[in-house]
Protein backbone atom coordinates (compact mmCIF):
# COMPACT_ATOMS: atom_id res chain seq x y z
CA UNK A 1 0.00 0.00 0.00
CA UNK A 2 1.38 3.40 -0.95
CA UNK A 3 1.63 5.39 2.29
CA UNK A 4 2.38 8.86 1.02
CA UNK A 5 2.12 10.20 -2.51
CA UNK A 6 4.86 12.74 -3.26
CA UNK A 7 4.84 15.05 -6.25
CA UNK A 8 7.76 15.75 -8.58
CA UNK A 9 7.44 19.06 -10.42
CA UNK A 10 8.22 19.81 -14.07
CA UNK A 11 11.92 19.35 -14.71
CA UNK A 12 12.24 18.23 -11.06
CA UNK A 13 12.39 21.89 -10.00
CA UNK A 14 12.15 22.53 -6.24
CA UNK A 15 10.65 25.52 -4.47
CA UNK A 16 12.84 26.46 -1.50
CA UNK A 17 9.79 26.29 0.74
CA UNK A 18 9.00 22.74 -0.39
CA UNK A 19 12.51 21.34 0.01
CA UNK A 20 12.67 18.13 2.02
CA UNK A 21 15.08 18.12 4.94
CA UNK A 22 18.06 15.77 4.70
CA UNK A 23 19.79 15.07 8.01
CA UNK A 24 23.52 14.40 7.82
CA UNK A 25 24.07 13.73 11.52
CA UNK A 26 24.29 9.98 10.91
CA UNK A 27 27.57 10.52 9.04
CA UNK A 28 29.68 11.24 12.07
CA UNK A 29 32.11 8.96 13.88
CA UNK A 30 33.14 11.65 16.39
CA UNK A 31 30.99 14.23 18.10
CA UNK A 32 32.12 17.75 19.17
CA UNK A 33 31.57 18.68 22.80
CA UNK A 34 31.88 22.31 23.95
CA UNK A 35 34.01 22.65 27.08
CA UNK A 36 34.15 26.44 27.54
CA UNK A 37 31.04 28.42 26.57
CA UNK A 38 32.57 31.79 27.55
CA UNK A 39 35.46 31.27 25.15
CA UNK A 40 32.99 30.31 22.40
CA UNK A 41 31.33 33.71 22.74
CA UNK A 42 34.60 35.38 21.70
CA UNK A 43 34.78 33.44 18.40
CA UNK A 44 31.55 33.89 16.49
CA UNK A 45 33.46 33.26 13.25
CA UNK A 46 33.48 29.56 14.07
CA UNK A 47 29.80 29.52 13.10
CA UNK A 48 30.85 30.35 9.53
CA UNK A 49 33.66 27.78 9.54
CA UNK A 50 31.25 24.95 10.35
CA UNK A 51 30.20 23.57 6.94
CA UNK A 52 26.86 22.38 8.28
CA UNK A 53 26.04 25.68 10.04
CA UNK A 54 25.57 23.45 13.06
CA UNK A 55 27.17 25.76 15.64
CA UNK A 56 24.28 28.04 16.55
CA UNK A 57 24.79 31.53 17.94
CA UNK A 58 21.93 33.64 19.23
CA UNK A 59 22.28 37.36 19.92
CA UNK A 60 26.04 37.15 19.34
CA UNK A 61 26.42 34.44 22.02
CA UNK A 62 27.00 30.70 21.64
CA UNK A 63 23.80 28.71 22.04
CA UNK A 64 24.21 25.04 21.06
CA UNK A 65 25.37 22.59 18.40
CA UNK A 66 22.74 21.20 16.02
CA UNK A 67 23.58 17.50 16.15
CA UNK A 68 20.96 16.70 13.47
CA UNK A 69 23.40 17.91 10.81
CA UNK A 70 26.88 17.81 12.41
CA UNK A 71 29.06 15.46 10.31
CA UNK A 72 31.80 15.31 12.95
CA UNK A 73 34.46 16.77 10.63
CA UNK A 74 36.39 18.29 13.54
CA UNK A 75 37.07 21.69 11.96
CA UNK A 76 35.63 23.42 15.04
CA UNK A 77 37.71 21.39 17.50
CA UNK A 78 40.84 22.03 15.43
CA UNK A 79 40.15 25.78 15.26
CA UNK A 80 39.44 26.15 18.96
CA UNK A 81 41.58 23.49 20.58
CA UNK A 82 40.83 22.99 24.34
CA UNK A 83 37.47 24.79 23.89
CA UNK A 84 35.85 22.04 21.79
CA UNK A 85 36.79 18.40 22.09
CA UNK A 86 36.00 15.60 19.63
CA UNK A 87 34.72 12.48 21.40
CA UNK A 88 34.31 9.08 19.80
CA UNK A 89 30.63 8.21 19.29
Amino acid at each position, binding site marked *: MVKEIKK*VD*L*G*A*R*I*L*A*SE*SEEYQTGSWRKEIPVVKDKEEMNKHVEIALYCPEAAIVYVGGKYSHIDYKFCKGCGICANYLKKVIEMKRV
Partner: protein
Amino acid sequence: MRALINGNYAVSYAMMQINPDVCASYPITPQTQIIETFSKYVADGKVTTENILAESEHSAMSACIGASAAGARVFTATASQGLAYMIEVIYIAAGLRLPMTMVVGNRGIGAPLLLHCDYSDSFLARDSGWIQIYCKDVQEVYDTTLMAVKITEETKIPVMVMMDGFYTTHGEQVIDTLSTKQAVNFVGKKPKWPNMLDSKITFGNVSLTDSNIEVRERQWRDLANSSKSILGIQKGFEKFSKRNYGLYESYGLKDANTVFVTMGSSYQAIELTCQELRKKGKKVGCLRPRVYRPFPYNELRAELKGKKIIVLDRAISHGAEFGPMGLEFQGMGREFYNVVYGIGGRDFGLEEAKDLVGKFLKGKQKKFQFYGLRKDLKN
Protein backbone atom coordinates in the same frame (compact mmCIF):
# COMPACT_ATOMS: atom_id res chain seq x y z
CA MET B 1 -0.39 45.00 -44.62
CA ARG B 2 1.24 43.59 -47.76
CA ALA B 3 5.00 43.37 -47.77
CA LEU B 4 7.70 42.06 -50.10
CA ILE B 5 9.94 40.42 -47.58
CA ASN B 6 12.23 37.43 -47.07
CA GLY B 7 12.01 34.85 -44.31
CA ASN B 8 14.70 36.45 -42.15
CA TYR B 9 13.11 39.88 -42.19
CA ALA B 10 9.69 38.33 -41.59
CA VAL B 11 10.91 36.71 -38.37
CA SER B 12 12.61 39.88 -37.25
CA TYR B 13 9.54 41.96 -38.10
CA ALA B 14 7.21 39.61 -36.21
CA MET B 15 9.45 39.80 -33.17
CA MET B 16 9.65 43.56 -33.45
CA GLN B 17 5.88 43.73 -33.38
CA ILE B 18 5.58 41.80 -30.14
CA ASN B 19 8.64 43.32 -28.46
CA PRO B 20 9.95 40.39 -26.40
CA ASP B 21 11.88 40.88 -23.15
CA VAL B 22 15.18 39.31 -24.13
CA CYS B 23 16.91 38.13 -27.28
CA ALA B 24 20.16 36.19 -26.96
CA SER B 25 21.78 35.29 -30.25
CA TYR B 26 24.91 34.50 -32.21
CA PRO B 27 25.27 35.03 -35.94
CA ILE B 28 25.46 32.13 -38.39
CA THR B 29 24.61 31.83 -42.05
CA PRO B 30 21.73 31.88 -43.11
CA GLN B 31 20.16 33.54 -40.09
CA THR B 32 22.44 36.56 -39.68
CA GLN B 33 19.87 38.93 -41.17
CA ILE B 34 17.42 38.09 -38.38
CA ILE B 35 19.70 39.31 -35.63
CA GLU B 36 21.12 42.16 -37.69
CA THR B 37 17.72 43.63 -38.43
CA PHE B 38 16.57 43.02 -34.89
CA SER B 39 19.64 44.78 -33.53
CA LYS B 40 18.77 47.76 -35.73
CA TYR B 41 15.29 47.80 -34.24
CA VAL B 42 16.90 47.85 -30.79
CA ALA B 43 19.31 50.61 -31.83
CA ASP B 44 16.46 52.74 -33.17
CA GLY B 45 14.37 52.20 -30.07
CA LYS B 46 11.60 50.41 -31.98
CA VAL B 47 11.79 47.65 -29.35
CA THR B 48 12.91 47.68 -25.72
CA THR B 49 14.30 44.16 -25.87
CA GLU B 50 17.49 43.38 -23.98
CA ASN B 51 19.74 42.20 -26.78
CA ILE B 52 22.43 39.78 -25.55
CA LEU B 53 25.09 39.27 -28.21
CA ALA B 54 26.53 36.06 -26.89
CA GLU B 55 30.01 34.76 -27.62
CA SER B 56 28.77 31.41 -28.93
CA GLU B 57 25.52 29.61 -29.71
CA HIS B 58 25.98 27.50 -26.59
CA SER B 59 26.09 30.65 -24.47
CA ALA B 60 23.21 32.17 -26.45
CA MET B 61 20.92 29.26 -25.61
CA SER B 62 22.23 29.23 -22.03
CA ALA B 63 21.33 32.90 -21.71
CA CYS B 64 17.88 32.12 -23.16
CA ILE B 65 17.42 29.47 -20.49
CA GLY B 66 18.49 31.90 -17.79
CA ALA B 67 16.20 34.60 -19.13
CA SER B 68 13.20 32.29 -19.41
CA ALA B 69 13.89 30.93 -15.93
CA ALA B 70 13.73 34.53 -14.74
CA GLY B 71 10.29 34.97 -16.30
CA ALA B 72 11.21 36.75 -19.51
CA ARG B 73 9.75 36.25 -22.98
CA VAL B 74 12.78 35.23 -25.02
CA PHE B 75 13.67 34.27 -28.57
CA THR B 76 16.74 33.30 -30.54
CA ALA B 77 17.74 32.00 -33.95
CA THR B 78 20.39 29.66 -35.23
CA ALA B 79 21.25 27.07 -37.87
CA SER B 80 23.53 24.19 -38.75
CA GLN B 81 26.78 24.13 -36.76
CA GLY B 82 25.31 26.52 -34.21
CA LEU B 83 22.41 24.22 -33.48
CA ALA B 84 24.80 21.31 -33.20
CA TYR B 85 26.96 23.30 -30.77
CA MET B 86 24.03 24.20 -28.55
CA ILE B 87 22.46 20.73 -28.61
CA GLU B 88 23.48 20.05 -24.99
CA VAL B 89 21.59 23.09 -23.78
CA ILE B 90 18.66 22.43 -26.13
CA TYR B 91 17.99 19.22 -24.21
CA ILE B 92 18.29 21.14 -20.94
CA ALA B 93 15.83 23.82 -22.07
CA ALA B 94 13.23 21.18 -22.89
CA GLY B 95 13.90 19.27 -19.68
CA LEU B 96 13.48 22.38 -17.58
CA ARG B 97 10.15 23.09 -19.34
CA LEU B 98 11.01 26.70 -20.08
CA PRO B 99 9.05 28.68 -22.69
CA MET B 100 11.18 30.03 -25.53
CA THR B 101 11.05 30.39 -29.29
CA MET B 102 13.87 29.55 -31.65
CA VAL B 103 13.90 30.03 -35.41
CA VAL B 104 16.13 27.70 -37.41
CA GLY B 105 17.25 28.53 -40.93
CA ASN B 106 17.81 24.95 -42.03
CA ARG B 107 21.36 24.45 -43.18
CA GLY B 108 23.18 21.14 -43.28
CA ILE B 109 25.80 20.21 -40.75
CA GLY B 110 29.32 19.60 -42.10
CA ALA B 111 31.75 18.02 -42.75
CA PRO B 112 32.23 18.88 -45.53
CA LEU B 113 31.30 22.42 -44.70
CA LEU B 114 28.24 23.64 -46.53
CA LEU B 115 26.10 26.75 -46.43
CA HIS B 116 22.91 25.60 -48.06
CA CYS B 117 19.73 23.84 -47.17
CA ASP B 118 19.18 20.44 -45.80
CA TYR B 119 17.50 19.26 -42.62
CA SER B 120 20.38 17.55 -40.85
CA ASP B 121 20.54 20.36 -38.29
CA SER B 122 16.96 20.36 -37.02
CA PHE B 123 16.72 16.56 -37.19
CA LEU B 124 19.57 16.46 -34.68
CA ALA B 125 17.14 17.91 -32.15
CA ARG B 126 14.31 15.49 -32.91
CA ASP B 127 14.57 13.63 -29.63
CA SER B 128 15.25 16.67 -27.48
CA GLY B 129 11.65 17.36 -26.48
CA TRP B 130 11.12 20.60 -28.40
CA ILE B 131 8.03 21.24 -30.49
CA GLN B 132 9.20 21.35 -34.11
CA ILE B 133 7.27 23.10 -36.89
CA TYR B 134 8.49 23.20 -40.51
CA CYS B 135 7.38 26.07 -42.75
CA LYS B 136 7.15 26.04 -46.52
CA ASP B 137 7.15 29.76 -47.36
CA VAL B 138 7.67 33.22 -45.92
CA GLN B 139 3.99 33.76 -45.10
CA GLU B 140 3.97 30.61 -43.01
CA VAL B 141 7.21 31.63 -41.29
CA TYR B 142 5.75 34.99 -40.27
CA ASP B 143 2.53 33.41 -39.05
CA THR B 144 4.24 30.54 -37.25
CA THR B 145 6.71 32.82 -35.46
CA LEU B 146 3.79 34.64 -33.86
CA MET B 147 1.94 31.43 -33.09
CA ALA B 148 5.07 29.84 -31.61
CA VAL B 149 5.27 32.44 -28.87
CA LYS B 150 1.72 31.63 -27.80
CA ILE B 151 2.26 27.87 -28.11
CA THR B 152 5.39 27.83 -26.01
CA GLU B 153 3.91 29.94 -23.24
CA GLU B 154 0.80 27.78 -23.05
CA THR B 155 2.45 24.35 -23.16
CA LYS B 156 5.69 25.30 -21.33
CA ILE B 157 7.56 23.46 -24.07
CA PRO B 158 10.17 25.33 -26.13
CA VAL B 159 9.28 25.68 -29.83
CA MET B 160 11.56 25.45 -32.87
CA VAL B 161 10.34 27.03 -36.12
CA MET B 162 12.11 25.83 -39.25
CA MET B 163 12.52 27.51 -42.62
CA ASP B 164 14.66 26.44 -45.55
CA GLY B 165 18.08 28.08 -45.59
CA PHE B 166 18.40 30.49 -48.51
CA TYR B 167 15.18 29.35 -50.21
CA THR B 168 12.97 30.82 -47.52
CA THR B 169 15.44 32.80 -45.43
CA HIS B 170 16.65 34.88 -48.35
CA GLY B 171 13.95 34.35 -50.96
CA GLU B 172 11.59 37.35 -51.05
CA GLN B 173 7.87 36.79 -51.31
CA VAL B 174 4.78 38.95 -51.01
CA ILE B 175 3.05 38.28 -47.72
CA ASP B 176 0.24 39.63 -45.59
CA THR B 177 1.37 40.82 -42.17
CA LEU B 178 -0.84 41.54 -39.21
CA SER B 179 -0.85 45.06 -37.88
CA THR B 180 1.25 45.49 -34.75
CA LYS B 181 -1.95 45.93 -32.71
CA GLN B 182 -3.35 42.67 -34.08
CA ALA B 183 -0.08 40.82 -33.48
CA VAL B 184 0.13 42.05 -29.90
CA ASN B 185 -3.52 41.19 -29.28
CA PHE B 186 -3.12 37.71 -30.74
CA VAL B 187 0.03 36.82 -28.81
CA GLY B 188 -1.44 38.36 -25.71
CA LYS B 189 0.06 39.26 -22.39
CA LYS B 190 2.85 37.08 -21.08
CA PRO B 191 1.39 34.54 -18.61
CA LYS B 192 3.04 34.01 -15.23
CA TRP B 193 5.25 30.96 -14.88
CA PRO B 194 7.43 29.83 -11.92
CA ASN B 195 10.57 31.89 -12.17
CA MET B 196 13.61 32.84 -10.16
CA LEU B 197 12.79 36.48 -9.59
CA ASP B 198 9.24 36.08 -8.30
CA SER B 199 9.91 33.07 -6.09
CA LYS B 200 12.79 31.24 -4.43
CA ILE B 201 13.14 28.21 -6.66
CA THR B 202 15.91 25.84 -7.66
CA PHE B 203 16.13 24.97 -11.37
CA GLY B 204 18.20 22.26 -12.95
CA ASN B 205 18.83 20.19 -9.88
CA VAL B 206 19.84 16.56 -9.80
CA SER B 207 17.11 13.97 -10.22
CA LEU B 208 18.53 10.54 -9.54
CA THR B 209 17.19 7.06 -10.19
CA ASP B 210 14.32 7.60 -7.77
CA SER B 211 12.53 10.25 -9.82
CA ASN B 212 14.16 10.75 -13.20
CA ILE B 213 11.91 8.51 -15.28
CA GLU B 214 8.79 10.09 -13.77
CA VAL B 215 9.97 13.55 -14.78
CA ARG B 216 10.78 12.30 -18.28
CA GLU B 217 7.49 10.49 -18.69
CA ARG B 218 5.65 13.70 -17.80
CA GLN B 219 7.78 15.56 -20.38
CA TRP B 220 6.98 12.93 -23.03
CA ARG B 221 3.27 12.97 -22.17
CA ASP B 222 3.02 16.75 -22.28
CA LEU B 223 4.75 16.92 -25.65
CA ALA B 224 2.41 14.25 -27.04
CA ASN B 225 -0.64 16.16 -25.77
CA SER B 226 0.60 19.54 -26.98
CA SER B 227 -0.91 19.02 -30.44
CA LYS B 228 -4.28 19.91 -28.89
CA SER B 229 -2.92 23.30 -27.77
CA ILE B 230 -1.24 23.82 -31.12
CA LEU B 231 -4.49 23.23 -33.00
CA GLY B 232 -6.40 25.52 -30.64
CA ILE B 233 -3.92 28.36 -31.02
CA GLN B 234 -3.83 27.97 -34.80
CA LYS B 235 -7.63 28.20 -34.81
CA GLY B 236 -7.36 31.41 -32.79
CA PHE B 237 -4.90 32.80 -35.34
CA GLU B 238 -7.38 32.15 -38.12
CA LYS B 239 -9.70 34.74 -36.58
CA PHE B 240 -7.01 37.42 -36.89
CA SER B 241 -5.52 36.47 -40.25
CA LYS B 242 -8.13 34.48 -42.21
CA ARG B 243 -5.37 31.88 -42.76
CA ASN B 244 -5.73 28.42 -41.29
CA TYR B 245 -3.08 25.88 -40.41
CA GLY B 246 -3.22 22.26 -39.33
CA LEU B 247 -0.74 19.68 -38.12
CA TYR B 248 -0.03 18.86 -41.77
CA GLU B 249 -1.00 20.13 -45.22
CA SER B 250 -2.16 17.98 -48.12
CA TYR B 251 -3.48 18.16 -51.65
CA GLY B 252 -5.65 15.68 -53.51
CA LEU B 253 -5.35 12.94 -50.88
CA LYS B 254 -8.93 11.74 -50.88
CA ASP B 255 -8.86 9.71 -54.09
CA ALA B 256 -5.11 9.63 -54.73
CA ASN B 257 -3.47 6.25 -55.11
CA THR B 258 0.06 7.70 -55.14
CA VAL B 259 1.11 10.28 -52.55
CA PHE B 260 4.35 12.22 -52.38
CA VAL B 261 5.42 13.26 -48.89
CA THR B 262 7.92 16.06 -48.39
CA MET B 263 8.60 19.09 -46.15
CA GLY B 264 9.56 22.70 -46.45
CA SER B 265 9.83 24.74 -49.65
CA SER B 266 10.10 21.73 -51.99
CA TYR B 267 6.47 20.95 -51.15
CA GLN B 268 5.47 23.85 -53.39
CA ALA B 269 7.18 22.25 -56.39
CA ILE B 270 5.62 18.85 -55.66
CA GLU B 271 2.18 20.39 -55.20
CA LEU B 272 2.36 22.27 -58.51
CA THR B 273 3.45 19.06 -60.26
CA CYS B 274 0.57 17.12 -58.70
CA GLN B 275 -1.93 19.83 -59.70
CA GLU B 276 -0.75 19.67 -63.33
CA LEU B 277 -0.93 15.87 -63.39
CA ARG B 278 -4.42 15.94 -61.88
CA LYS B 279 -5.59 17.95 -64.88
CA LYS B 280 -4.35 15.06 -67.03
CA GLY B 281 -6.35 12.64 -64.93
CA LYS B 282 -3.55 11.14 -62.87
CA LYS B 283 -4.65 10.32 -59.32
CA VAL B 284 -1.70 11.83 -57.45
CA GLY B 285 -1.63 13.70 -54.19
CA CYS B 286 0.94 15.19 -51.87
CA LEU B 287 1.35 15.83 -48.18
CA ARG B 288 3.72 17.68 -45.92
CA PRO B 289 3.98 17.30 -42.17
CA ARG B 290 3.98 20.80 -40.65
CA VAL B 291 4.22 19.92 -36.97
CA TYR B 292 7.02 17.36 -36.94
CA ARG B 293 7.23 17.00 -33.17
CA PRO B 294 4.84 15.89 -31.76
CA PHE B 295 4.52 13.75 -34.90
CA PRO B 296 0.84 13.34 -35.88
CA TYR B 297 1.20 9.61 -36.55
CA ASN B 298 -2.46 8.69 -36.00
CA GLU B 299 -3.78 11.31 -38.39
CA LEU B 300 -1.15 10.59 -41.04
CA ARG B 301 -1.59 6.83 -40.80
CA ALA B 302 -5.31 7.30 -41.44
CA GLU B 303 -4.74 9.69 -44.36
CA LEU B 304 -2.19 7.46 -46.10
CA LYS B 305 -4.00 4.16 -45.59
CA GLY B 306 -3.97 1.96 -48.67
CA LYS B 307 -1.90 4.37 -50.75
CA LYS B 308 1.47 4.09 -52.42
CA ILE B 309 3.64 6.64 -50.63
CA ILE B 310 6.95 8.12 -51.73
CA VAL B 311 8.67 9.94 -48.88
CA LEU B 312 11.21 12.60 -49.85
CA ASP B 313 13.96 13.12 -47.30
CA ARG B 314 16.15 16.18 -47.24
CA ALA B 315 18.46 14.54 -44.72
CA ILE B 316 20.38 11.31 -44.32
CA SER B 317 20.38 8.90 -41.42
CA HIS B 318 23.68 7.19 -42.03
CA GLY B 319 23.61 3.50 -41.29
CA ALA B 320 19.82 3.28 -41.24
CA GLU B 321 17.62 1.64 -43.84
CA PHE B 322 15.90 4.91 -44.78
CA GLY B 323 16.25 8.65 -44.26
CA PRO B 324 14.90 10.22 -41.05
CA MET B 325 11.45 11.00 -42.48
CA GLY B 326 11.42 7.59 -44.16
CA LEU B 327 11.93 5.89 -40.81
CA GLU B 328 8.88 7.74 -39.39
CA PHE B 329 6.63 6.90 -42.34
CA GLN B 330 7.78 3.39 -43.16
CA GLY B 331 4.91 1.59 -41.47
CA MET B 332 2.31 3.62 -43.30
CA GLY B 333 0.55 3.18 -46.66
CA ARG B 334 0.26 0.12 -48.84
CA GLU B 335 3.58 0.53 -50.65
CA PHE B 336 6.47 2.60 -49.35
CA TYR B 337 9.40 4.27 -51.10
CA ASN B 338 12.04 6.65 -49.83
CA VAL B 339 14.07 9.20 -51.81
CA VAL B 340 16.90 11.33 -50.46
CA TYR B 341 17.14 14.61 -52.32
CA GLY B 342 18.41 18.18 -52.09
CA ILE B 343 21.24 17.46 -49.64
CA GLY B 344 23.60 20.40 -49.24
CA GLY B 345 21.25 22.67 -51.11
CA ARG B 346 21.12 20.71 -54.38
CA ASP B 347 18.15 22.47 -56.00
CA PHE B 348 14.82 20.72 -56.11
CA GLY B 349 12.55 22.94 -58.15
CA LEU B 350 9.65 22.39 -60.53
CA GLU B 351 11.77 20.61 -63.15
CA GLU B 352 13.23 18.16 -60.66
CA ALA B 353 9.81 17.57 -59.08
CA LYS B 354 8.26 16.78 -62.45
CA ASP B 355 11.11 14.44 -63.29
CA LEU B 356 10.93 12.56 -59.98
CA VAL B 357 7.14 12.27 -59.94
CA GLY B 358 7.23 11.14 -63.56
CA LYS B 359 9.75 8.41 -62.74
CA PHE B 360 7.54 6.99 -59.99
CA LEU B 361 4.40 7.09 -62.08
CA LYS B 362 6.11 5.41 -65.02
CA GLY B 363 7.78 2.33 -63.60
CA LYS B 364 9.17 0.33 -60.70
CA GLN B 365 11.68 2.20 -58.57
CA LYS B 366 14.11 1.05 -55.88
CA LYS B 367 12.78 1.14 -52.34
CA PHE B 368 15.48 3.62 -51.31
CA GLN B 369 17.46 5.92 -53.62
CA PHE B 370 19.38 9.16 -53.82
CA TYR B 371 17.85 11.53 -56.36
CA GLY B 372 19.67 14.09 -58.45
CA LEU B 373 23.26 12.88 -58.22
CA ARG B 374 25.41 14.35 -60.95
CA LYS B 375 26.18 11.90 -63.74
CA ASP B 376 29.32 13.81 -64.77
CA LEU B 377 30.88 13.73 -61.27
CA LYS B 378 32.52 10.54 -60.07
CA ASN B 379 32.30 9.96 -56.30
